[in-house]
């Protein structure tokens, strides 16, 4: 018996040693003296392969450098592309690349490489539609290529500023065209040095990147994935994290008290909105839709659910998007600033005159009660509750239903929802076409309007940017009048940092500008 027990204990110890040896301890408890930047994030991107991922963020985009970029004023300026020439009616564009750029693998970023990258993008990226309907890509010389579209595609130039369309080095793929997620090669400021699945991504500065004088201001960047909010905050407060992205709103005031901590605020480019299935009979009358818009008090939602860290938006586009119009924003603000009495009158004019014992308006004996879908983000759920309260003031009863994002994404194109709290973000007004109100593309809102289809289609192929802006303005004016959804707010991107001589966040897209990051010595 004794021998058996001894054998069991030995077996346990051996097993324990084997398991301990299987996984290396990667993290160091102290980073004193190092120029390592530790960034704390909520979740790991599903892939570092930009053609496969549907979730871009700080942890995977620094691998890639874009063909064009937005400067701090929002102008589109050259980046990997030195210049381009629009030919004839705009269906063909010749692009000339800068000649001294290399991928992380050491291969040149030349016309052939960019062509192969675009071909893979069209074949496998969920964002391939943002390259337009490409007819052909022709290599003209080592650093020049021509893209021909079946139709003009005006949003292409802004889309080129996003990482989704950045060139990747397809030469690192294996014989099956796979393996990029394990051995990625782009031309961005950070080069991947280690993947610790589920735990962290470790990068080093790419030596051939176009750094500012003096080279990179850090030796490595460690993106750590810490899903729990409390744990992430404690790691930052303890000094184990230098950059805390998406600081939860309730902790901002506390962190601001620390003199070593700087809070960077940049308006986001993602617009949250209250939408509904416009095909449902209850939303057919424009007066009903306008009444809902008029009953919403955005500032109250922002103050009560986001600690005031968001900007109210009344027009259909956020300020960061090309196509945003101050005139439209003012017009929408004037029309839909909260006015309960007017909202009630509009509902009455639409026939919602009676009230049941709960104060819910009725028409033909049926109460105005709808279900509002919201995802599992606690801030969104709080916002849904405020909206529920605000709409009850005009007699509309909202039942909140919390759904997983996967369910909302699958069910809303089928029209299974009534109302939803959702959001979108894209740097170009073409998002109104390909996502929100385009013909057969209005997946969440199911809004049908031939006049708007026509304007959005025309805008997508209008190569003259001023004329294009006018078309979007016209379409947005109609959208404000028709009120097929209620734009609510754009949340601030809030980042907490410490231990930097210099740390810069792009004021338009909110990404970290790695060439301007310098760790305190």
């Amino acid at each position, binding site marked *: 018996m004794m021998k058996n027990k001894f054998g069991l204990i030995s077996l346990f110890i051996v097993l324990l040693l084997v398991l301990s040896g299987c996984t290396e301890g990667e*993290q160091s408890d102290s980073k004193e003296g190092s120029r390592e930047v530790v960034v704390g994030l909520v979740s790991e991107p*599903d*892939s570092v392969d930009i053609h496969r991922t549907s979730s871009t963020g700080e942890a995977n985009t620094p691998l890639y450098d874009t063909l064009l970029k937005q400067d701090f004023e929002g102008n589109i300026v050259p980046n990997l592309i030195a210049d381009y020439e629009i030919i004839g009616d705009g269906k063909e564009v010749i692009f000339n690349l800068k000649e001294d750029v290399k991928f992380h693998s050491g291969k040149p970023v030349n016309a052939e490489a960019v062509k192969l990258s675009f071909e893979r993008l069209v074949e496998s990226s969920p964002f391939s539609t943002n390259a337009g309907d490409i007819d052909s890509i022709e290599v003209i010389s080592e650093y020049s290529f021509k893209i021909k579209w079946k139709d003009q595609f005006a949003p292409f130039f802004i889309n080129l500023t996003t990482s989704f369309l950045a060139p990747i080095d397809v030469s690192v793929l294996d014989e099956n065209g796979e393996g990029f997620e*394990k051995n990625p090669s782009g031309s961005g400021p950070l080069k991947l040095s280690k993947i610790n699945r*589920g*735990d962290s991504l470790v990068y080093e500065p790419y030596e051939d990147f176009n750094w500012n004088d003096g080279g990179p201001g850090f030796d490595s960047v460690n993106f750590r994935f810490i899903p729990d909010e409390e*744990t992430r905050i404690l790691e930052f407060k303890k000094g184990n994290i230098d950059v805390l992205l998406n600081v939860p709103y309730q902790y901002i005031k506390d962190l601001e008290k620390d003199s070593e901590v700087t809070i960077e605020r940049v308006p986001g480019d993602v617009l949250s909105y209250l939408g509904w299935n416009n095909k449902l009979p209850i939303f057919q009358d424009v007066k009903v839709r306008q009444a809902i818009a008029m009953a919403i008090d955005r500032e109250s939602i922002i103050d009560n659910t986001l600690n005031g860290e968001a900007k109210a938006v009344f027009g259909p586009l956020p300020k960061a998007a090309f196509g945003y119009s101050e005139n439209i924003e003012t017009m929408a603000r004037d029309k839909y600033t909260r006015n309960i009495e007017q909202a009630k009158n509009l509902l009455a004019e639409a026939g919602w005159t009676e009230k049941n014992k709960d104060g819910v308006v009725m028409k033909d004996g049926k109460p105005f009660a709808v279900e509002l879908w919201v995802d599992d983000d606690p801030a969104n759920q709080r916002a849904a509750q405020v909206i529920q309260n605000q709409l009850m003031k005009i007699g509309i009863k909202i039942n909140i239903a919390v759904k997983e994002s996967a369910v909302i994404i*699958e069910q809303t194109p089928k029209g299974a929802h009534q109302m939803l709290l959702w959001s979108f973000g894209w740097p170009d007004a073409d998002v109104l076409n390909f*996502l929100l109100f385009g013909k057969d593309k209005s997946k969440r809102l199911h809004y049908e309007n031939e006049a708007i289809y026509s304007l959005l289609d025309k805008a997508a192929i209008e190569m003259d940017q001023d004329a294009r802006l006018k078309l979007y303005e016209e379409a947005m004016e109609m959208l404000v009048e028709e009120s097929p959804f209620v734009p609510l707010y754009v949340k601030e991107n809030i980042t907490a940092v410490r231990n930097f001589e210099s740390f810069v966040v792009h004021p338009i897209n909110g990404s970290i500008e790695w060439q301007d990051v310098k760790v305190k010595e």
Partner: protein
Amino acid sequence: MSSYLLKRITTMLITIIGVSILVFMIIHLIPGNPVNHILGDYATEESIRELESRLGLDRPITVQYLSYMANAIQGNLGTSFITGYTVVEEIMNRIPITAQLAFYSIIFGSFLGISIGVLAAVKKNTIYDQLAMTLALIGISAPGFWIALFLILLFSYQLSIFPISGYSGFYSLILPSITLGLGTAGSIARMTRSSMLDVIKQDYIRTARAKGAGAYRLIFQHCLQNAVIPVITLIGMQFGYLMAGAVVTETVFALPGLGSLIVSAISTRDIPTVQGLLLFMGSIIILVNFAVDLLYTKLDPRIQYE
């Protein structure tokens, strides 16, 4: 013994097949599908159909299941729809952490639970007994995330003894193991107490005491050794709960184990990863319980499987 083994192995295989069918049905029945997640907001009807066909999701469900099982038998659990890694790679990357966590938790939980249980039984109806059972009740009922945060705040944030989160070897698994082990300890303590009290009443204990056996020998050799069988059964059963508890513990401590992987796989409807992981975890739990059954014969020679 050999016919017993054959019977048990057959039952195990049937159970694993049952688990695989159940898992397959559940993941296909819940709303939300991976194609929508992959293509996101920008999907068209055409691109959805094309991707469904590429991933084999347009085939009848029975064909999908049979093809999946045919591959699984050969050790191929498929490739994640989302990450591009094979499911076996994902499991191999993460199993060392979850296995260590489960192992240390069981060791901690068993040691603490048996100690408290023995103390409560020996000091029955005293303040020690009441205190021990109150502690056991707290261990069972306190939520894992609450215990985890309490331990982090005290031992990591205030006292700087352990790292707050992440994996950096054995040291970083001490707090997660305590978090996970406390619930197990509570159940084991209650079971040990009740089993010990049954044994203490037996005639052979009275005889041993009459023959002058010392307190230490009486408790640990005569009582505990005979009282431990139901406790061992409970420890085997707790293994399943530990796997479930690991989901919360790994999330709070940011440990890259199987628990955190399954959470992200479910939220993205990554069918191959969810199926592979649940099948793997189910098989492990079944195997552990089988091992526990075999352990009985070693602990009590009176038990023989025919």
